[in-house]
């Protein structure tokens, strides 16, 4: 199997140019799918037979949780590529995931706790998914803390890559252990929406919102990654052309 294509797209000037072209498209797609998901979720979907209108929080809570987990996965994948093939572009992508991921982890936690108030009667319940999400937030904070403690970008890239790889091996174990721990002390759990039992009128908006969030994540991540590439390639010749071509 040839990895030549990978190295070609990993060339910083090409990445900078292509990402710059892709970002507007991805952003518009995110806006359109998001609008469709909102109309479907807040307007067309019927109330849930158990939770009434309160379940509509699902259309932002679950996509936020999915985004936060996926951002960590993307970060780990990019960090691994950066570490193995010493690709600056991959390191730039990894560094661009943490902040969005952390903010959406916070969002998943707050929307989860706002959902918990009417459903459990308290804002915080040691629900396994919320607890795993909280540990994920700590993993993000550790990643950002390590990066900010190291001044040299190359060292920060490689050290944080090792950390995120250790974290991604641990994440399933953490998730499993928290599930196991919760099953022992179970009080209430969030009412489960089995995928099969969910009617299409709810499922379709949910999937649309997830898609919108993932596209949004791609747009934010690529925007940040372009900046990170510029920072890493400070002295390269292509920079003066590339920034000359940018509208001010």
């Amino acid at each position, binding site marked *: 199997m040839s990895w030549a294509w990978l190295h070609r797209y990993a060339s910083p000037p090409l990445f900078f140019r292509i990402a710059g072209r892709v970002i507007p498209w991805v952003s518009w797609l995110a806006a359109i799918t998001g609008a469709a998901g909102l109309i479907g979720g807040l307007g067309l979907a019927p109330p849930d037979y158990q939770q009434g209108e*309160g379940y509509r929080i699902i259309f932002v809570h679950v996509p936020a949780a999915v985004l936060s987990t996926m951002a960590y996965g993307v970060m780990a994948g990019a960090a691994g590529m950066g570490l193995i093939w010493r690709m600056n572009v991959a390191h730039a992508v990894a560094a661009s995931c943490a902040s969005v991921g952390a903010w959406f982890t916070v969002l998943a936690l707050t929307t989860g706790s706002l959902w918990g108030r009417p459903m459990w009667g308290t804002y915080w319940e040691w629900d396994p998914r919320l607890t795993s999400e909280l540990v994920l937030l700590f993993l993000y904070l550790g990643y950002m803390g390590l990066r900010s403690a190291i001044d040299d970008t190359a060292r920060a890239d490689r050290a944080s890559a090792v950390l995120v790889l250790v974290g991604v091996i641990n994440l399933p174990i953490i998730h499993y252990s928290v599930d196991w721990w919760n099953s022992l002390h179970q009080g209430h759990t969030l009412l489960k929406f089995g995928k099969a039992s969910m009617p299409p009128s709810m499922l379709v908006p949910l999937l649309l919102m997830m898609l919108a969030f993932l596209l949004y994540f791609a747009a934010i991540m690529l925007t940040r990654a372009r*900046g990170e590439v510029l920072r890493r390639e400070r002295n390269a010749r292509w920079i003066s052309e590339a920034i000359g071509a940018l509208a001010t």
Partner: protein
Amino acid sequence: MMEWLYMGGYWRYVWPCYLLTAAAIGLNIYLARRSFAAAVREARRRVGASRSGS
């Protein structure tokens, strides 16, 4: 319309969630753009300095 806004009594929980989501989306757009703009400014300064230096 009022009935929709009332969300069957859950308005106090549903709308803050959507507002917070909007805030998080806006904040991350702002932060990402600011980070990119800062990188461009830094690169411009560097390119300018190397031109005037040579």
